[in-house]
């Protein structure tokens, strides 16, 4: 019988991280959140501008009790309010905070900071500004709400802003990644200092580790959908950063896309005269994507969920009775209905387990990697916003194209391709940076070293200890430093050769390849899984007890740069070619090995699937997200066990057990199943 797999099944507990006590600005803890998942409500208060006879303006929050009632009582959108900054500058700001405190509501991610925009104009137009919250206001929040209820100021989409606007202003452009990192940090030190170094990140690109590293971020999260990155790839970064630094993360889905924003309240699509965007019932993010994002991000273990806006109708009213009072209030829009339904589902299913991500993708601390194309610049293949991709960055990109197919197209296609993707290997990856602590790394079952990351020094020591403790590893020969031989079982001769083929030795199968470079390996202890026809090893596997270490001889597992007849261009509704290829023999060995780390098997057309482990060794949750406009039908099975009992958690309908479960997922929809195995399938790690 198959031995149960050792898994890490504990959610991130910030208070248990060794540096928690020392941190001046502490991450939000589960205790702060009353050990509950939350949803957010209310994006701004109603503000009145009063101009005196000298022309001086003052501001006053009006009808705040009614507004709070509407969003948290009439409609129970949640206990977390997410307001625009302007109420902080209102003369009755303290009254509002007192009311929030009385109601025990959370204040989350006070938003609207935009560099170089003057405050007076921002307040007048009820829009963004470069503001420094008055110290007395910050203190008042802390005094009345405490760190429990006052969660922080918004570092919102600033990584994208930096990349799109400021990174290239540095003169000269950085020549090293470290310099690029320093430039990046200068921007964020400046920004966070304005916000009292008490912030929450709402990322727009893949930099959450650097925010977490600053020591002043309390939560990590992202504005998903919009014209922003692919969520499975992106949350691999966000979860990884959260786990590496001990910070909880949240999710949010935006109604915007590249071309406009969804407003189900309108009958026709129209141009919004204020913002210039197209808006209406058939532009912006679709309702089905909003729903899938909600449940997927929830199953990614977000501690808080939200939809950006559009919950209430500005046209339709309904009569409601609350606390014995009958009143006419705005009706719900389909967005509001989705939010309330999902929040109710969360309340009824509080034990959603811990997403099972057994594979760590390790990038160098200074990587600064971002997807090859994104919203903030027409430039392609850049890191840090001001350095071109190196070959290692292309490796990261091509790896993600395999495990999240279409991720690089996210936001560039009208059909919403790429926001969520199938996961041929399962949604099983977290991204960690090379400075990760050993105790965090040991919570994973395998590590893949990606990009321009060198296995040497401290990282080598951590990896050695990880492998000794049973962790598996995949590494590429050009990433190996001195002294890796005892881990990999191979020695580099220092000679570099080229080839245009590989023979997968286990199947005696020849695969043709574009020209690639490989490092000559001497095998000390290991099995050659692929070689050239002359017998030169291309892939070597060393078994160390239960662990396996794969060494790929090719440079990053990639071809040489492909000759391109025309420069690569970046256009909407068109694919983005890569100047490299992931070699077939690398794909053929690496990807099935990664897929093996899943606890379940999914048979059918490619689909996105997430597995969650729980406190019980027989209980798993499986999320199937069908991002295709065709209904999906297929089969799921637990590896090494039969299904004793199953439940469709979306409907709470019991399903028959057996060796496999046949399921159907409607088009562009998401399903979550509880599977009870007939024997333990996991045992729990203690690190």
């Amino acid at each position, binding site marked *: 019988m198959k031995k149960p797999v050792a898994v890490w099944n504990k959610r991130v507990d910030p208070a248990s991280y060794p540096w928690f006590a020392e941190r001046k600005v502490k991450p939000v803890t589960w205790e702060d959140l009353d050990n509950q998942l939350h949803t957010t409500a209310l994006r701004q208060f109603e503000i009145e501008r009063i101009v005196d006879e000298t022309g001086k303006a003052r501001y006053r929050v009006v009808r705040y009790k009614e507004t709070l009632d509407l969003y948290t009582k009439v409609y129970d959108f949640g206990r977390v309010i997410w307001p625009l900054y302007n109420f902080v500058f209102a003369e009755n700001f303290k009254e509002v905070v007192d009311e929030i405190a009385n109601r025990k509501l959370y204040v989350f991610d006070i938003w609207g900071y935009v560099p170089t*925009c003057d405050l007076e104009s921002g307040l007048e137009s009820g829009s963004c500004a*470069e503001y420094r919250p008055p110290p007395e206001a910050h203190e008042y929040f802390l005094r009345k709400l405490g760190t429990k209820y006052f969660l922080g100021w918004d570092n919102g989409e600033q990584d994208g802003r930096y990349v799109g606007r400021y990174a290239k202003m540095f*003169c*000269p452009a950085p020549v090293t990644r470290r310099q690029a990192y320093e430039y990046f940090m200068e921007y964020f030190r400046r920004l966070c200092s304005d916000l009292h170094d008490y912030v929450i990140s709402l990322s727009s690109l893949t930099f959450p580790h650097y925010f977490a590293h600053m020591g002043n971020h309390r939560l990590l999260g992202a504005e998903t959908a919009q014209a922003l990155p692919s969520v499975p790839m992106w949350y691999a970064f966000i979860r990884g950063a959260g786990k590496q630094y001990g910070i909880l993360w949240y999710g949010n889905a935006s109604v915007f896309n590249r071309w406009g924003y969804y407003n189900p309240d309108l009958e026709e699509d129209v141009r919004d005269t204020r913002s210039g965007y197209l808006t209406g019932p058939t532009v912006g993010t679709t309702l089905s994507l909003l729903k899938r994002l909600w449940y997927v991000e929830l199953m990614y273990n977000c501690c808080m969920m939200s939809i950006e806006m559009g919950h209430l109708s500005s046209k339709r009213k309904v009569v409601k009775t609350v606390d014995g009072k009958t009143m006419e209030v705005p009706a719900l829009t389909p967005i509001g209905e989705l939010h309330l339904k999902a929040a109710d589902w969360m309340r009824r299913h509080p034990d959603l387990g811990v997403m099972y991500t057994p594979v760590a993708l390790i990038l160098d601390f200074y990587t600064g990697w971002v997807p090859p194309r994104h919203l903030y610049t027409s*430039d392609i293949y850049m890191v840090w916003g001001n350095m*071109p991709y190196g070959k290692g960055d292309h490796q990261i990109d091509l790896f993600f194209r395999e495990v999240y197919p279409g991720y690089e197209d996210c936001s560039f296609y009208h059909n919403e391709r790429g926001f969520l993707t199938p996961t041929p290997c399962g949604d099983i990856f977290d991204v960690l940076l090379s400075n990760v602590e050993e105790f965090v790394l040991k919570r994973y079952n395998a590590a893949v070293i990606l990009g321009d990351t060198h296995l040497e020094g401290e990282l080598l020591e951590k990896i050695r200890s990880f492998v000794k403790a049973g962790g598996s590893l995949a590494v590429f020969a050009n990433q190996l430093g001195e002294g890796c031989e005892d881990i990999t079982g191979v020695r580099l001769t220092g000679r570099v050769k080229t080839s245009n083929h590989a023979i997968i030795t286990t199947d005696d199968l020849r695969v043709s390849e574009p020209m690639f470079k490989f490092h000559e390996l001497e095998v000390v202890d290991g099995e050659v899984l692929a070689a050239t026809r002359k017998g030169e090893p291309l892939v070597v596997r060393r078994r160390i007890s239960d662990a396996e270490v794969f060494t790929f001889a090719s440079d990053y597992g990639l071809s040489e740069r492909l000759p391109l007849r*025309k*420069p690569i261009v970046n256009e909407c509704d068109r694919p983005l070619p890569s100047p490299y290829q992931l070699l077939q023999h690398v794909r053929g060995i690496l990807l099935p090995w990664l897929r093996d780390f899943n606890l379940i098997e999914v048979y059918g057309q490619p689909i996105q699937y997430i597995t969650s482990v729980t406190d019980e060794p027989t209980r798993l949750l499986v999320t199937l997200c069908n991002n295709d406009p065709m209904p999906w039908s297929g089969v799921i099975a637990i590896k090494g066990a039969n299904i004793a009992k199953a439940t469709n958690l979306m409907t709470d309908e019991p399903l028959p057990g057996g060796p496999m479960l046949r399921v159907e997922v409607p088009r562009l929809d998401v399903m979550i199943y509880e599977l009870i195995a007939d024997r333990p399938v996991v045992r729990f790690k203690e690190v």
Partner: protein
Amino acid sequence: MRIIAINSWLFRDLPVERTVEVAASIGYDAVEIPAVEVQRIGTENLNTLRKLTSRCGLKISAVNAVVSFVPYIHGDIATKVLRRRQEFLQQLKGIIDKTAMLDCRYLILAPGPRSEVYQTYDEAFMTNVESLKYLGEHASEAGVIILLEAMPFRYPFRTSKEIKRILDAVNMPSVRASLDTGHVRLAGEKLEDATDILKEQLKYIHLSNVRIEPGKPLLDEHRPLNDGIISRKEYLKLLSNMKNVPIAINVVTTGDYIACAKECLQMVKSLLS
């Protein structure tokens, strides 16, 4: 005699005092120092630096604020956030004073970009002009000339035409222009057009090279002089047109910076001979 200077940032982490010695040993006439370095040095040590420079037979050709200050992050002269602009202008006044103490004639500055919202092109233009008038008065008293240089990624004032418009509006002898050959090309201009536009207002030239290839991002790389799209012929034409204007080699390298400094100097001398 035309002064040939080297920007001290080529020498990466070398202390400025050591940079002066190295530049002298290679054969440069002057060094250009980033403003942030000047800010860091206390008043009493400025005198020491001045003496050291003089002892090495060198001058300080310019203090460069363009490389030290990035808009918003460190400050800029056009920001609509009044408090920030005032703070930055005070900083710059201090730097002008220190520039004078170093017996240095030039302080290089860039126009501020337009704020993200709430500022029209005209407002940003006028804010730049007003800030430069304010600084120009102080510079005039201190015997310093502010040189305005276009930066290719600080929109919208990124071309020689824009610089000329601002200078004409400021209309002060203590506010003039410099140009960087790499910046000019990144902004889509030809070197000869830029010098034609700026004419006698151009008082200082930065030499750097740049790569511009279809499908590749544009970057302010400051490549060594022989490594990019600007040819020897173009440099030669520029230097012939702008006789007696001081030049500063404004490059960086990931390789051997001493060798790079020597090669660039050799190339410039061969162009001038």
